[in-house]
């Protein structure tokens, strides 16, 4: 009885496996999910397929169908500009599970954002890039220019906008200028804050 059940089960499994194979005609669609790609320039390959992946793509499929148990090998031919992408689950034998499991995770290069405060004599000044804040204290020589850098780096090409979150407690009024734009491909100390 037990062995009969086993045999029937095996036969069923065999049938299911064979039908999944589809006779090896190359019926599987190889795809990869993409996370964090905000820059152009990424080129990926698999076998003879070469795909250019534009910024903000979240998933892509390779045009050539592959057969069950065929080996696939997704590789990065060219990294995006000012970003670095890393592959996962990119090499395997093709089956219905493995062809949808590969992923590419990209991190955009980030740079320091900062600037200079002019004329500051009082304490308490806080400037912010949205949720990222930095406190600025006067120079030992009050009123002399003071440099500042935000604690969190800004990704290449991402927007920034610097505002005065808290004014100095001595009644000075500070105002930010040259304070909003898209991050260049390098550190920026272009933001100015005038206090008077």
């Amino acid at each position, binding site marked *: 009885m037990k062995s009969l059940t086993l045999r029937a089960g095996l036969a069923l499994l065999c049938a299911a496996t064979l039908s999944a194979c589809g006779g090896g005609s190359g019926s599987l669609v190889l795809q990869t999910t993409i996370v964090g790609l905000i820059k152009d320039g990424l080129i990926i390959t698999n076998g003879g397929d070469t795909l250019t992946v534009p910024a903000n793509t979240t998933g892509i499929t390779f045009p050539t169908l592959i057969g069950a148990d065929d080996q696939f090998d997704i590789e990065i031919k060219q990294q995006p500009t000012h970003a670095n992408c890393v592959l996962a689950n990119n090499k395997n034998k093709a089956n219905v599970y493995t062809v949808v499991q590969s992923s590419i995770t990209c991190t955009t290069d980030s740079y320091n*954002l900062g600037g200079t405060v002019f004329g500051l004599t009082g304490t308490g000044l806080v400037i*912010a*890039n*949205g*949720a*990222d*804040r930095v406190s600025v204290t006067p120079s030992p020589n009050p009123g002399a220019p003071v440099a500042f850098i935000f604690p*969190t780096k*800004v*990704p290449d090409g*991402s*927007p*920034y*906008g*610097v*505002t*005065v*979150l808290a004014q100095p407690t001595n009644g000075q009024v500070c105002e930010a200028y040259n*304070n*909003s*734009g*898209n*991050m260049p491909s390098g550190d920026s100390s272009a933001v100015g804050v005038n206090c008077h």
Partner: protein
Amino acid sequence: MKFSYLRALAALVLGVALSACGGKASFDVSGVFVDTLGHSQAVPNSGMILTDNGGDDISIPAGATSFTFPHRLSYGDNYDVEFKQQPDHMTCSFTNFNTGSAGHTISISVSITCAQNTYTLGGTATGLANCPAPTSDIPYCLTVTNGTTGGTFNITKPADGTDNAPFTFASPVRDGDSYGVTVLTQPANMNCTVANGAGIMHDANVGNVLVTCVPK
């Protein structure tokens, strides 16, 4: 051979079950605080009060990673853990069963995850009647941003000729986070400035950011 194994196993299971019952006449109603991935995480804010069966209350201090109610339950008693008060600036929820019967599982461990409250950020833009007519290249009049991570908002010229238009950033701001609205892209023919653009989000939506555009 096979049957003797089975019998031995059954005896063992019975023994374990009996010793579990006999050794523990009452049950703690306890729980843990976790993040969204299920890892232990301390509650950052004070103010949370939990109640079991509507009468057994416990205050949760900031920094707590677990809790145990003062009253223990007997086998078969029901427990029903609820929030009597949420912690300051946060909303918490149960990530598994918060009700049940003592003894149904070996121990009672309720799982709670908390998230900082968030509020919307927005305001009004004025002077938009002078915006350039939208084109396929430049469909928007101006773009404002809330720093780097708070998102951007494209303000368009109202089609009906109205001078004002409201805007709200798509990303809400966490309670306690600062926000700072600036003009990221100016229209070609106007200067736009921001008033009430910086502050710290606290307990309510902000809708008073004022963007004023005047012709150059």
